[in-house]
């Protein structure tokens, strides 16, 4: 419970910053102000300015928007495709369909999201959308596997047997009885994939495969800060710590949610 609160506060802080950035930022992130370049934190610029005189706090706020949006949509893609696949595989256990879905999963697992991003970028050129697709595709087999695993054990339970005797079809049972019972697990996994997505997006935009200038993103801020780390360390510390705190917050939330939503695990731990 404590982990959930601490994690929620940490991650919530950055989500709030991202939301606020839609209506208000301290300074315009696209306005260059060379007179105020490389200012240390404080004095009108809470977190200092970069080599173009852009306000670091404003950039981190808008960057939060990009990171969170990319990771969140990628989780949506992963769930939207992975959960139905996992439900179908479990409902048709041992059939050709099940085998095909599982082998397809293995195949996608062989492509780390970085490789998918490289392929997509080679074809379409770099953009934040590519990062979303790459991370989203990577998420699909994760959700398919979790869903199938949990659904398989549910299919052997009495209440499913009862539903079948009542004449419900496999698709209807999957939607009405299996899905609600795996939802808790999916929420926990969703939090984990959310945090992994933030890390992946940062890595992709760091190597130039994610959001493109002038949109600020945490990864690209770090790439730009790299050559200035000896005389302007705040440029590397601020976005870096933002990533760490967001990911840490989401991971703590995931742990906390698991403890609450999955009483089986809680009993083992206690």
């Amino acid at each position, binding site marked *: 419970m404590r982990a959930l609160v601490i994690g929620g506060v940490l991650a919530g802080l950055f989500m709030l910053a991202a939301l606020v950035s839609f209506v208000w930022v301290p300074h315009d992130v696209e306005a260059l102000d060379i007179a105020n370049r490389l200012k240390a934190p404080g004095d009108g610029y809470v977190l200092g300015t970069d080599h173009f005189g852009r306000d670091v706090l404003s950039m981190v706020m808008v960057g939060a928007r990009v990171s969170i949006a990319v990771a969140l949509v990628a989780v949506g893609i992963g769930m939207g495709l992975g959960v139905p696949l996992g439900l179908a595989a479990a409902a048709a256990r041992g059939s050709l369909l099940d085998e095909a879905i599982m082998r397809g999963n*293995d*195949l996608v697992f062989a492509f780390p999201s970085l490789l998918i991003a490289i*392929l*997509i970028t*080679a*074809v379409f050129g770099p953009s934040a959308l590519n990062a979303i697709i790459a991370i989203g595709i990577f998420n699909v087999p994760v959700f398919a596997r979790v869903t199938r695993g949990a659904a398989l054990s549910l299919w052997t339970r009495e209440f499913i047997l009862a539903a079948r005797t009542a004449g419900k079809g496999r698709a209807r049972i999957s939607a009405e009885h299996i899905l609600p019972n795996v939802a808790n697990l999916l929420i926990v996994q969703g939090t984990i994939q959310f945090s992994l997505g933030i*890390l992946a997006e940062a*890595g992709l935009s*760091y190597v130039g495969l994610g959001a493109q200038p002038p949109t600020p993103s945490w990864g690209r801020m770090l790439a730009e800060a790299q050559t200035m780390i000896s005389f302007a360390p705040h440029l590397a510390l601020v976005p870096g710590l933002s990533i760490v*705190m967001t990911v840490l917050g989401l991971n703590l939330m995931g742990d906390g949610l698991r403890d609450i939503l999955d009483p089986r695990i809680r009993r083992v731990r206690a």
Partner: protein
Amino acid sequence: MLRYAFRRLISFALALVVASLVVFFSLEVVPGDPAAYMMGLNARPEAVEALRAELGLDRAPAQRYVAWIGGMLQGDFGTSYTYRAPVAGMIADRLWVSLPLALYALALSTLIAFPVGIWAAARRGSAADMAVIGTTQLGIAVPNFWFAMILVAVFAINLGWFSAGGFPGWENGFWGGLKALTLPAIALALPQASILARVMRSALIDTLGEDFVRTARAKGLSPGQALRRHALRNALIPVLTIIGLQFSFLLAGAIIIENVFYLPGLGRLVFQAIQQRDLIVVEGVVMLLVFAVITVTFLVDLAYAAVDPRLRRG
């Protein structure tokens, strides 16, 4: 075991074929003609046509796919569009940086994670255990390339213990090369070690609760002996899976980390190739990495079955 190995071998081969189809045909839809791109704007159409024929671009996609696969099986990855050099040679040069880096990081991560995980599991619930949980929780949240930048700032720029980047080449001495890869390997290894230590800890805690460990204690073994002789071996299965999975993450991570240290590895090669639209290089590198991941997964599956006969039925 043989039958199981054979079945896994077939699905391994099948995965490679499908993966190669995906890689080849996803780059096939790219608009633009590499030959025209190479010859520049003022090229005569005949010259472009001749180059197309030389590169084999005038053939049907299916034919080129077969030629590409056939070539790769013989170690011929084609000719780079920009450098006019064999792709296989370019990849081999870069692989001598990326692969040692990934293996170095894997070794470090395993060497750190095993003792830490075992130590924490043996003292479950103590302050030391809590410290390990907290530290690894933080380690998982740190992006490795940012951690790498911090390492450069502290150990290269401030303390001067390492150079901030670049690679002297193995031909100029093994230790010099290893030293140049040390900071990148640490940056790659620590987040992975955090994950591995957690897996080691929880797997060991699970097996320590098993009946056979109680039996071992009942016959007079000390807690340490029971852990070493009975629990540890049984806890290794989940740990092995994670190590196998981590290898692919480390290879991909190495590609990103190379940018921090200006290392001439596969990462630099592939990002340059993307910018120059040198697609045959992109194809070669991606295929090689996918091959590595699929092979490691296959080997881990076999290792599993060798360790645990129950899994052979799977």
